[in-house]
């Protein structure tokens, strides 16, 4: 079974998605347990993969037994496997906390939601694990199609949001496909590791430059990098809260990982380091984006919309740090991807439960509630996440921001450093505004001991905030060992 591990991670949610789609209409009670079971299976297999690759090194898997250059190859290494298990954990958290919400909202058709959600999971896991450039496009489109459908589940604004996301997302995917097409035209191969050997002698040619540009532009639309971000806040704040909880932490980060994967595996780190123009251009665009997004986050009225801008700020931060021509920068980005998934999970999960249990939608609604007395765990994990977003020591966010600043200084990109610090201070003001409403408008209410949330929600919040601290404590293990397993 160990030899089949890479495909087992992927196939469980895929089969469950098809099964739920088929049996859902007449056997509704089976759908929810089946969805939870398949996600648990994929968590179990990815954790097994972490253990296996940590002890015995990375492994590759050829689908259907075809050779690498003909068929599709999957690559599993320790970093990959950790990313896969965190993604499955996010999906599990969403499925567990949103059960009641989905049953109430779609009493007849909730099985379709679970089917879409598992298809989305399949696509995301596929993007992370695949080693084939065209296969990546197919998984990207599976993710996008299920996201369009899920985003349109909200009220009527969400149809427009989803339509806009569809148009922009299709342009992104088409640019990526065009880039892959040019690569195929030049080399006649699609496997990422083999492509690298063909691309090496062609470094100076215009066609490689063009395909690099097309791929980076296409994926930066999916990452929601600064000028291409307009779809994200609109889509994620208009849809229902479980959908934003499961998509906001994952989609942009996994697209960023796909971008790094294509750059590192296909073009090679040396190609990235030979691009002088990008070194000055990209960090500066990211710096403008960071300040713009943090101000936007501060001025939003809706809680979820302001978290969307925090997410965008983090995306710009990470994508900008990729271009400093330093391996440490790429490592820090890969490390920050893991931390950021957990941070955004806590933020959007708490926004979702506050909407559902307390009817808190806007910042002004926070004033007359007694969250402070009741929801100790929510506040604890929220504070940990805020510390991590701001980059304050015991949390993982501190180390990645520290590395970003270090690398930016080495590359003499002072504008990036300044805007990182300035935007962190603006976000500090944003979080203080948030906590000020909770702490200083607090009225003592008798008999307000018990938490309104189900125990599983509190457990998820606690686990993800503790993981942020744990990843911070183990930063050297990640930077020196685990991420090297991916970079090679």
């Amino acid at each position, binding site marked *: 079974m160990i030899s089949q591990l890479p495909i087992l991670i992927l196939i469980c949610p895929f089969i469950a998605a098809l099964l739920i789609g088929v049996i859902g209409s007449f056997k509704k009670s089976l759908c929810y347990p089946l969805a939870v079971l398949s996600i648990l299976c994929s968590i179990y297999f990815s954790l097994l993969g972490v253990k296996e690759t940590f002890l015995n090194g990375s492994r590759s898997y050829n689908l259907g037994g075809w050779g690498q250059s003909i068929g599709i190859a999957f690559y599993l290494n320790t970093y990959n496997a950790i990313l896969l298990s965190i993604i499955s954990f996010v999906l599990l958290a969403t499925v567990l906390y949103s059960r009641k919400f989905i049953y109430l909202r779609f009493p007849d058709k909730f099985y379709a939601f679970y089917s879409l959600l598992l298809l989305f999971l399949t696509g995301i896991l596929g993007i992370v694990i695949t080693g084939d450039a065209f296969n990546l*496009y197919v998984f990207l489109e599976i993710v996008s199609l299920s996201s369009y459908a899920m985003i349109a589940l909200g009220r*009527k604004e969400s*149809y427009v949001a989803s*339509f806009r996301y*569809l148009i922009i997302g*299709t342009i992104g995917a*088409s640019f990526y496909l*065009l880039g892959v*097409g040019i690569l*195929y035209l030049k080399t006649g191969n699609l496997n990422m590791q083999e492509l690298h050997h063909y691309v090496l002698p062609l470094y100076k040619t215009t066609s490689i430059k063009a395909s690099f540009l097309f791929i980076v532009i296409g994926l930066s639309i999916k990452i929601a990098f600064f000028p291409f971000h307009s779809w994200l806040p609109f889509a994620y704040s208009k849809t229902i809260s479980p959908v934003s909880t499961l998509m906001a932490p994952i989609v942009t980060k996994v697209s960023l990982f796909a971008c790094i994967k294509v750059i590192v595996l296909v073009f090679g780190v040396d190609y990235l380091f030979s691009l002088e123009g990008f070194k000055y251009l990209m960090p500066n665009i990211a710096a403008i984006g960071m300040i713009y997004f943090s101000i936007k986050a501060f001025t939003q009225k809706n809680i979820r919309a302001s978290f969307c801008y925090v997410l965008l700020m983090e995306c710009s931060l990470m994508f900008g740090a990729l271009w400093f021509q330093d391996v440490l920068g790429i490592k820090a980005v890969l490390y920050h991807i893991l931390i950021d998934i957990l941070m955004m999970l806590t933020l959007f999960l708490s926004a979702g439960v506050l909407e559902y249990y307390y009817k808190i939608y806007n910042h002004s609604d926070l004033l007359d509630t007694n969250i402070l007395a009741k929801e100790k765990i929510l506040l604890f994990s929220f504070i940990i996440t805020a510390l991590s977003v701001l980059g304050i020591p015991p949390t993982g966010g501190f180390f990645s921001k520290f590395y970003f600043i270090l690398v930016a200084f080495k590359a003499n990109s002072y504008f990036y450093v300044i805007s990182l610090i300035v935007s962190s201070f603006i976000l500090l003001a944003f979080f203080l505004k948030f906590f000020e409403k909770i702490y200083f408008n607090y009225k003592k209410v008798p008999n307000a001991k018990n938490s309104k949330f189900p125990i599983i929600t509190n457990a998820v919040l606690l686990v993800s905030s503790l993981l942020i601290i744990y990843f911070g404590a183990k930063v050297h293990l990640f930077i020196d060992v685990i991420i090297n397993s991916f970079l090679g």
Partner: protein
Amino acid sequence: MELLFYKYNYVFYFILFSLGFYAMMAKNNLLKKIIGMSILQASLILFFVSMGIKNNANIPIVPESDVVNAKLIANPLPHVLMLTAIVVGVSTLAVALSLLQKISKEYKSIEEDEILRLMEDE
């Protein structure tokens, strides 16, 4: 310049691609945006399909015991890849059209500026 004349098919796909891209970005009518999306995807499919074509090449069915001359056989792989891309394109089109139907039912319009105005009014 000589290259452009020689590889005129790529020029044609580039024109189609820009046409679709322009329609998706600049058109106000949402249905026209969807048409632009179709044109864009069609241009990409044509681009891939034309990769596999060779002069005087035959169909890629090879009798078993024969010695194969690769120059005389069209490359089937891009065509097979495009089967997947066509399926993706069709499903994207279906999702887009059903979203458009919902939008026109709710807002009684498929002009983007009108919809945005209606959304701000609420």
